[in-house]
């Protein structure tokens, strides 16, 4: 299990049409060996298609795909050195957990006994030693998920593909399993491509996040870059909610820009912006709301919802309606309250374009 030879992945101008519908117009992407890369995006953005082309379940209309430096564009799924964890797990319901894990090994030509031994090892790796005789239906959701991971991992693929692996788990389990997957990946050092539409999941597990939209790469980079320096309002909004408001850049100095929203002035990292009009992404938590006291931007609370550890407001201002989460206020402000808006130092980014 520890003999992974992590492979790189390269997409070269890949295009994929389904009939007259173009899912991916032109995709080029390089994934370094040994990293975990997330393909993130709303449904229909082409992330799953990209993953399936990598697996060999779809073949590109044009372009090349390389795994570990080898051109696999035309290779069928069963001859590629990748394996996949499916969203539905796709455990064979008529085989026990052990038979499921041994299936790929036997397909690769391992003899029955040898395959069983390796499969046992694989189940132990994911903490399911001794559960091999159970049928998938006799396992819990989390256990099924781990069998699916074990089944993919025992093949020691150059690249492990995960297609929304957590979407069938409940919220609590989801957090634990995603940590386990990340640990496993870092311990064994394989390359992993992970598809999800949940940005929390992406931020938590990734070395690199690739955000896709309409078959294009909207932005890719380390989780922190994407969150703190979104290249577009789409990214800003997709990577954790953001209020995108128009602003004007007054001056740029030493990597910091002075921006003005209404009559509010604020300093943010310039991210290459020039003086003129621009957009500002304001995280809901980066807004301070207090009863009207003269300073800051004037606003009026439209709705107010108490959620235990924080309060959610919709506040109407001259710059548009802002969505605000307030973790400090002890007494929630009722709706129709006249308020003043301030911006905190973190959680605000200037959108360059």
């Amino acid at each position, binding site marked *: 299990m520890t003999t992974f030879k992590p492979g790189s992945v390269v997409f070269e101008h890949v295009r994929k049409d389904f009939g007259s519908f173009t899912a991916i117009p032109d995709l080029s992407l390089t994934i370094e060996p040994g990293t975990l890369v997330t393909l993130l995006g709303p449904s229909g953005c082409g992330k799953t*298609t990209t993953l399936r082309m990598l697996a060999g379940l779809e073949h590109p209309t044009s372009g090349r795909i390389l795994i570990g430096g080898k051109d696999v564009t035309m290779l069928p799924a069963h001859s590629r050195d990748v394996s996949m964890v499916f969203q539905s797990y*796709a455990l*064979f319901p008529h085989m026990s957990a052990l038979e499921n894990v041994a299936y790929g090994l036997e397909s690769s030509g391992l003899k029955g006994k040898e395959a069983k031994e390796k499969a046992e090892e694989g189940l132990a790796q994911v903490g399911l030693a001794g559960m091999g005789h159970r*049928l998938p239906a006799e396992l819990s959701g989390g256990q099924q998920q781990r069998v699916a991971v074990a089944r993919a991992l025992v*093949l020691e693929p150059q690249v492990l593909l995960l297609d929304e692996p957590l979407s069938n788990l409940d919220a609590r389990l989801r957090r634990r399993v995603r940590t386990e997957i990340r640990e496993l990946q870092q311990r064994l050092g394989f390359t992993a491509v992970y598809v999800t539409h949940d940005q929390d999941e992406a931020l938590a597990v990734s070395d690199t996040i690739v955000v896709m939209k309409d078959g294009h790469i909207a932005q890719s980079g380390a989780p922190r870059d994407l969150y703190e320096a979104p290249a577009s309002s789409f990214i800003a909004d997709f990577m954790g909610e953001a209020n995108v408001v128009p602003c004007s850049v007054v001056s740029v100095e030493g990597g910091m820009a002075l921006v003005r929203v209404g009559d509010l002035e604020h300093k943010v990292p310039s991210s290459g912006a020039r003086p003129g009009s621009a957009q500002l992404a304001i995280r809901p938590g980066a807004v301070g709301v207090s009863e009207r006291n003269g300073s800051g931007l004037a606003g009026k609370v439209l709705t107010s919802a108490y959620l235990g550890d924080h309060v959610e407001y919709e506040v109407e201002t001259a710059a548009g309606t802002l969505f605000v989460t307030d973790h400090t206020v002890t007494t929630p402000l009722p709706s129709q309250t006249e308020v003043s808006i301030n911006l905190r130092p973190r959680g605000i980014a200037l959108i360059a374009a």
Partner: protein
Amino acid sequence: MQNGNRRLDILILLGAAAFLLVPWYRIDRGFFGLSWVPDFPFSSNVAPGLLQIASHDRPWIAIALLLFLIGASARLMTNASSRGLLMAIAGGAGVLFLAAQGLAISFSGWAWTITETVFGPLSQGQPSMGAGAVTLSVVFVLFFAFGLAERGAMKGDAFITGSISLLIFLVTVFVFYPIGSMFAGSVQDFDGSFRPDGLIRNMQDPGIWSLGCITGDGRCGVAWRTLWLAVMTGLGSTIMGLAFALVATRTQFPFKKGLRLLTVLPIITPPFVIGLALTLLFGRSGVITEALSALFGIEPGRWLYGLTGIWIAQVLSFTPISFLVLIGVVEGVSPSLEEASQTLRAGRWKTFLKVSLPLMKPGLANAFLIGFIESMADFGNPLVLGGSHGVLSTEIFFAVVGSQNDPSRAAVLAMILLTFTLTAFMAQRFWLKGKNYATVTGKGDSGAHIALPRGLNWGVHGIVVPWMIFTVIVYGMIIFGGFVKTWGLDHSLTIEHYAKAFSISFADGAIAWTGVAWNSFWTTMEIALISAPLTAAVGLLTAYIIVRQKFAGQNAFEFALMMSFAIPGTVIGISYILAFNLPPLEMTGSALILIACFVFRNMPVGVRGGIAAMSQLDKSLDEASLTLRANSARTMRKVILPLLRPAITAALVYSFVRAITSISAVIFLVSAEYNMATSYIVGLVENGEYGVAIAYSSMLIFVMITIIAGFQMLVGERRLRRENRVAGTAPKTQSNSGTQGPSVQEKTA
């Protein structure tokens, strides 16, 4: 590409064997009889392909050899793309050439005058294709398929391209070629000479098209009568089937189990048996007729012999099929929709009429179509009950076997019949387009179906209960009739009919099958047992390809296959004798033609069952298997087949039973050597030997029940517990697939 080389090597060896090791042409006494071995290879009749070219003056085979060598030369190339192209071209050209030469050159030279004028006369013709030519055709088809696979078609999967190519090849040979031959046959004599006057005369025959019954002078033509009967049967069996389905699912009817059991009976009953039983009840000397005559002095009439009698027999025969279709439809209406309707202040009647019934509409249309087509195709009941009021299927039969011996008339009638059924099929497809309310959603649908409105409840019981009693009586007659000396005259009990049919004697320590029925009985069993697994295999493979693969022309492929379901058996029968009686393929009188007929006639049902079962299996199971390094063949064997056990059982049982009970196509194809039980029984009926006929029929029913039970034990129940789980997990995965973006939806749409 190693794998690619290995399969290519095998193919090349096979092709070489076709040229060198087996006779090129058909052996009259049968290839498997091996009577050709002593004369091989030098006699002209049995010489292999290579010698036919070299020393028997058949130079055109050299073109096939050349194409084969071109295909084989791809073995030396390394570039996958151009190598695949070469193989595909050689294979495609090879198949086309073999077909063309087979059709163009017959026993005595060119079959067509145009080729003779272009190429000049040939010194000699050729007999039908034999082992060598047939093997080479398959080799060419596979060349084509493997070539496409190497060029990356179907994701480079040679198993899939091979399967698709072979299926298309087989369907073309065994479905489209015969139908085409039939169209050609309508303007030909049996010896193949062109004679369009037959077509013209028959097309204008008032016996077919007369509207006399409406205008008031005489009878309507056979075409209109058949159409009228089919519409009435379709309506009758749909209404009955719906009543049954409602009783079985929406009432507290106490004998639901019995209801289900009754519906199985007619499926395993040879089609003419119902007609036979009806004659025993209502015929001139039937029990009820005589009782009425004795009690009330009602004159025994011949009302049963004609459309009315056929209609009753057909509704009795086809209601169970309609019931089977509709029970799924009635259960498929989501209870929550009915509950929603009730919470919206609609009463039971309104809910039923405005919600449930409209949702069942596509299912009802389907049931009607099945009744309509079955009625059109039915041969046994009209034969027994038709009297002088024949329908198209029987007229076709008499046009061939009777004193008329007019193949052109048979072909014309068959074309009319085919037009009716295909029109109905197309109309249904067209009408149902976009009307498929999938009311069984993936989400767990709790809630109970609401009870039927009171009036309707009484109504359906009023239909179902008498029908059940009637069916019990009819089947009672079938069993009883076999033990009566002479029906209507002498009702003393006897076993002489059984003795005559199934007697066994022991002579010289060996069993002698002295009964008259044994010969056809064993032939029937043999052919049914051979064709059942073939039908199931071809049907399920086709279903797999239709559900799981995408390829150019797939819709046409699926449509053509489903269309063959709408081709009546009589049409198949007549087209088979017209197509396979002359070169290039000669099979009449052999067991092979019966097997081919059963496989391609019953396959659509296997396909439907397979499609239904396969749609229940989440596609990600196959994909998981593929990403786990298993190729398609292994995926099929290890994952799909084990999960499809119930569908396999159903397909096996169905095709087995159909092979035993079918008569319409079979009656054209049997020979002295290979006589089938049904056609033998029809012969008995025609000779008036009702006792033996009924004894034989009861025996068949009994045997089928036994064998079906055996099949069930063998394949079905063992894994049922796990199968239930599959059904349980399928909805979950279905509801997921919607969130995966367009690629998946595209695939599953």
